[in-house]
Every structure is written in C-alpha cells, then in structure tokens.
C-alpha cells in the first residue's frame, strides 16, 4: 500500500502551522493552537540571512549550469505537486513562477517548498503574500532532491533553457 510516514515531532510543528488554515479567522492572524514547544513565536525576529534565503534547511546553494535532465524531472514534479495552484506565465491561486528567481533567491524558493508552514507563519514576505492570496501554501514536497529538481525547472523556465518553456503547469 502507498503510505508515507513522518516522525511525530516534525508533525507537531506542522500541525501547529496547519491550525492556521482550519479556523474562521483570517489565517494571517491565526496563532498556533497546537502544543508545539518547537513552534516559534510569530513575532520572532528573523536574521538577515533568513530574510534573504528564507527559513528552513537550505543555505548558500552553489548552482552550476542548468542541468536539463534534472529540470525535466523537476517539471514532472511541478506538474503533480505545484501546478494546481501555480502557473508559469500568470497569477493563479498563487503567484506566477516564471520569474520567481528574479524576485527571490533560490534558497528562498526551496525553503518555501520544504518548509512552507513555518515560512507562512514567520517570514514577513510570505505573510504579506498570504494577505494578498489568502490560501496558505501547503506542504506538497518533503524530499530535498525533489525540491531541488523543481528549483532547476524554475531556473530553466526563467532563462528559457527548457525545451518546453511553458511547462505543463503553465499551459492555461
């Protein structure tokens, strides 16, 4: 059977963040109701690095030339996990992503993918986006390599290097 499990400790913080999308109050104002000592206060100050690269496991990526094979697998993951809400060319449920790397650092993009719940709760840039778009970005990807492949796909559409520059996700 198809199953995915994750350690409970990790889930506690996820649960805390999820509480923000279950209530009637505007999500940006919700606070974590679940018991998570690990969940940081929403008022916590961010470091300059966190402001720039986002909150999460990714720091100071060294990116080489675009790996087209990696970008292709990233496009497949993007189609399954992201395209319901993000298009390449246009705003949809979330912001367009064709030019996201001109707005954000690649570390920021990967941290947003892998650690969306905390980013939505704590990062002022993402909080502002939530106030604009209302739907908090769900965690769809937990695998570092998959997030990295999606980043490569976004790099490829940014530069037009992909053979299918629109991608399936942008085909609307």
């Amino acid at each position, binding site marked *: *059977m*198809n*199953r*995915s*499990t*994750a*350690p*409970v400790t990790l*889930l506690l913080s*996820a*649960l805390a963040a*999820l509480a923000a*999308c*279950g209530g009637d109050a*505007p*999500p940006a104002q919700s606070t974590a109701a*679940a*018991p998570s000592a690990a969940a940081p206060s929403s008022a916590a100050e961010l470091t300059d690095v966190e402001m720039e690269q986002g909150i999460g496991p990714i720091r100071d990526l060294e990116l080489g030339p675009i790996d087209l094979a990696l970008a292709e697998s990233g496009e497949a993951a993007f*189609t*399954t*996990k992201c*395209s*319901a*809400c993000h298009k390449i060319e246009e705003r*949809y*449920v979330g912001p367009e992503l064709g030019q996201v790397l001109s707005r954000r650092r690649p570390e920021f993009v990967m941290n947003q993918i892998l650690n969306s719940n905390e980013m939505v709760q704590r990062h002022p840039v993402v909080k502002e986006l939530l106030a604009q778009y*209302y*739907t*908090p970005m*769900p*965690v*769809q*990807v*937990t695998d570092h390599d998959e997030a990295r492949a999606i980043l490569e796909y976004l790099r490829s559409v940014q530069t037009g290097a992909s053979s299918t520059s629109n991608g*399936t*996700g942008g*085909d*609307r």
Partner: protein
Amino acid sequence: MSRTSNRSLYLIGALVAAGTAGTYACQGGGGGAVGAGDMASAAQAVYVAPGTYDEFYAFMSGGFSGNLTVMGLPSGRLLKTVPVFSQYPENGWGYSEETKAMLQTSHGFLPWDDAHHPELSMTDGVPDGRWIFINGNNTPRVARIDLTTFETTEIIEIPNSAGNHGSPFITPNSDYLVASTRFSVPIPNRDMSIEDYRGNFKGTLSFIRANQPDEMEIAFQILMPGYDYDLAHAGKGPSDGWMFFTSYNSEEEHTLLEINASRKDKDFVAAVNYRRAEECIANGAGGTSQVRYRHNHFDENHIAVSEELTSVRVIEPADCENLVYFLPTPKSPHGVDVDPTGEYIAAGGKLATVIPVHSFSKMIAAIEAGDFEEVVDGIPVIRYESVIAGEVENAGLGPLHTEFDGRGFAYTTAFITSEIVKWQIGTWQVVDRIPVYYSVGHLMIPGGDSRQPWGKYLVALNKITKDRYLPTGPELAHAAQLIDISGDRMRLLLDFPTQGEPHYAQGIAAEIIQNNQVQFYALEENTHPYAAKSEAETRVTRQGNQVHVQMTSIRSHFTPDNIEGIRVGDEVYFHVTNLEQDWDVPHGFAAMGAENAELLIMPGETRTLKWVPREVGIYPFYCTDFCSALHQEMQGYARVSPRGSSTPLRWGTGGTWRTN
C-alpha cells in the same frame, strides 16, 4: 407519547439504584460520589492537559452501530469512529464505489451488522498494534482494521455459522482467529422443521488464518453438537495450542431458551487442541463442505474487491481423536478467560453463584489418566473435580467476564449485582469489590487478556445507563466507567458515554500505535485507474450513459469545477483525487440531490461518488470538509441537460473549457 418529568426521573433513578443495584443499594442513585479530596484526586488522575496525549488507546466495539470507536484513556475522549460493517455516510464508507464491495456477503450487500468483540493482533502473547479484528455477529463475518490507517481493510464471511458471537479471539502469534456459532443450525442449511432441532442442528468452531493482511482464510471448521457457542480465548504459555470455547444450551432446546436452556446445572467449556486439528487434516481427516461465502479486501489500487469462495474444510471430533474435550462448567457459562500464565481458565457462569476456575495442568493430567465422566457425541467430558482448580465464592450474581492485572489478581464482572469483584489467583478469595452503574457486561484492562497486562486501569462496559448522564429522551448513551486498579483497592475515576453499545473493548499503550501512523498517501504511488494525479490529467469521458469525471481537489478548488454535457439518467462517476500531500488535509465532496453519501478523500487518495441526476438543471457540488480560509469558495457546477440532448461534453476550471 409518554413523558417523564425530571422529578420522576430522579425517582426512577433512585429505584434503579435500589432495584437493579440490589445488594449495594446503600450506594444510592448518585453512586460513586466521593469526598471533595477524593474527587480532586480522581479528576487529576484522568486529566489530560490540552495538547497532551492519553496514555492508552481504547478500542470500543460499537455493538449495534456496527462500528469501532477509538477513545483515549484515561480521559475517555472520543478520537475516531472506524466504520466496519455498517455504511457510514460521514466518510462514504459502503457508499463510495471503492468501498461498496467490502459489505458484500453471500446474502447480497448488507448495510449493517452488530459488532461485538475487538481483538488486537498479538506477537508472543502480547498486543502488537498491527491490526485489530472485530466480529459481525448477525451475519457471521470477521473484519481486519489496519492500525496504521485506522481503516477496515478486509472482511471474511463465515459459512456454516449463524450468529458469530464467539469471535474473533486470537492465538498468541496471530496464527488463528476463531469464530464460534452462537446459533446452531442445520448444516448444510436447509428447509426442515425447527422441532427436529435435536441431533440435526449443529454448531461450528471456525479457525481463520489471520497473520497475512488481505489473505484471511478459513483454515478449518470443527462440527460440534447443537449447543449455543458463546465466547472463547486462546491458551498461552503452557496452554499454547489450545483454544477454549464456552457453550450453553447443552439441553439442545429451540424455544424459550430463557427457561429451557437453564435446566442443567452445568454446561461445557470446550477445550480444542488446534495443533492436533492441523495434524489430523494433514493426515486427510475430515471433508470439504460446499458453501458460498465472501472474502472482501482492498486490491493494489486500494479498491475493495469481493471474491466468492465455495468450499471449506470441516472435521468432526470423531474424525480426530484427542481434538476436543468438554470441561463441565456451571451454569450457562458466558466468558472464558485465560490468566497471563496460561495455567488458569476462568469461566463466568452467568447463572452460577461461584466463578469456576479450571486448571490446564489438571486438565492434561485428567486426559492422560482417561478421567472422564461420560462421552457426549464422541467428545470426552472430563470429571469436574479433576479439572477444577478452585471456585471463587461470594463473587456476586451473574459473573460474566474476567480480565487480569498481571500481578496475580483477576477482575470479574457481576451483571446482576452490578459490581466488579477482584479476586486472587491461587487463594480464590475475593479481596475487593466495587459497584458500577449499571449492569456491567464486559470489562477491559489494557492487555488484560494477554500475557502482559498493563494493570493500571479497568474500564467497566455497562449495559444500562439510567440516571448517569443528563437525560436525552428514551434512548441514552451507554455508560463506561474508568476504574483505577493500580492500588490494593479499586477506585472509580470517571464516567464517560460511548457510541452504540460498547460491547467489549481492547486497550494498548499509546506508543505502540501512535508513532506508526500513515499521514497521507503518496500521489506518485496512486494506481487508481481513474486517478488524476495532476490537474493536467483531469478529464471527463462518456461511455454510453456513463460519464466519468476525473477530478482533482486541492486548497481550495476542484478541477474541473464547471462540467456540461451530462444528461438526465446518466450514471455520473465523480472520481476525486485529493492532490494534497500533507497530514490532516482531507477534502470532502457532495453533489446536490445525489442519492448517496458524501466522500471524504484522504490526501493522495482517489474516491468515487456515483450520481444519477433525475431532472435537468444546474447542480452545485462542494467541499464538505473545512479545508482553508477559502473553503467556502471550494465549489463547482454540473449542468444536466435533457435525455438525448446534444449539449457538448466540456469542462474546465478558471474559465478555460476543455473537450475531448
């Protein structure tokens, strides 16, 4: 309509306490009330602070609800209802196309059953938290619930059985579950006079292989005299390899059993050597009975399939020497419970004044010595005096069920006197007793039927509620009571209501289950034939009058959310794939006018709702499970045109229409 005022209700409550409570009438209607200090200490004992977890999972049978309910102990909080034998519109169980087959039987699709005894899987005689099983009492079945998903994944029907009460008790390594027929019937079942019961109606004891998921099978059945077979428990330790079944109605009566089946002073516990059955069958004993029964389970796409089976192996005690022995047991025994060491077998004679406790080693010695008082239908009856270890006297009236604390004490429910009696193994002396409210049936100590009980709490599962809660009209929630058994004296901590009839329950330390939970299904592993694993894969196709909508849901929209080209009388199948890949984000799906339930679709899963629109119009559908701030926007429209209409089939989300 008959009404009762509050005041007369209290009077009734007092009468009940004085009446059914019988010997402990001194407790009064507010039974269990204690001093303020005791109350504070009881409250502290059951308080589970916000955001913290209970220490035990309790799995309560839903009884006549056909479900299993999951509660936390010591708080008594309801955590989940797991639908098993009954359709459950709350999540579409038995309504969705993927789950309907789970409720198929040889009698057709059955929307209900009566679920009595949850039984946790075991390894080495200790609950291991992999699965829990439960019986369907009315139309004989046994179900497996997977404890990583809390979902029923398999149901097997029991042929040659009627009233699967004595089930599904498990052997120490989950090799077998048993299913004993409460009602004896003609085997094979046929048209004959009920008056010709004696000698023609038979009982069966079925042994079901249980340790491979999706592969339950009936290994063999033992054909027994036409008694009522009631409950069972497996031996363990020295008695491993034996299964003990209670029976009553050894009078073989077919009417007014209340009187007619209560004439004899003793009925029987049947001791079955199932390893011996394996040997006999390996040597060719017994035959094959031609029957029809169903085995339902999920296939590799997580879609239930129902397979019809047509034969079962049946052996008779006469075919296999040393297979079954009868232990005489007073009087109309109900429960049969084996202590943690495996040496003692306590039987609750529901009309008896003592609790008889048999000794396994004495039983073996008597068998070796041929110490039998008679032979009934080819089954030797061991002399009572040769097998009994002790009788617990002054154990209350109507002793039913016993569980153990692992410290040398046993706890038995007394139905008629509404109390739990604690007694010592070996001395057979009652050492403590506590009234319960009211008319207790089963009791449960987490692991209390296993080799290693967690002897901290005891749950009394009471049959009568009366004045324990705020009244709710004629029907009241059933009552469970939590009792602290960690000290010398039992201490009542908490009353809590339950769903349906909490007939029996099982409990297990939370950590065995809680860290092993499936949180979502991986989309890339979804092999449902109608899955749409991305919005790019969504489509609507017509095959004759069938319309298949392959739809996705994600916070907070469906794709497609506009559908045209459906006609009156079409069979529309909404195959909804939940694209979310995170914990606790199910989406719901409901369509106006659907003669059906809703769907709840877990993240990564595909579930299908069938809808047959009867009139033209625009039909909204929407997400029923509050999912986000824009949940109320998660909606769509289906257009239904007249029969034969040429409205083209088209669909889309966000303003772009697609066609085939």
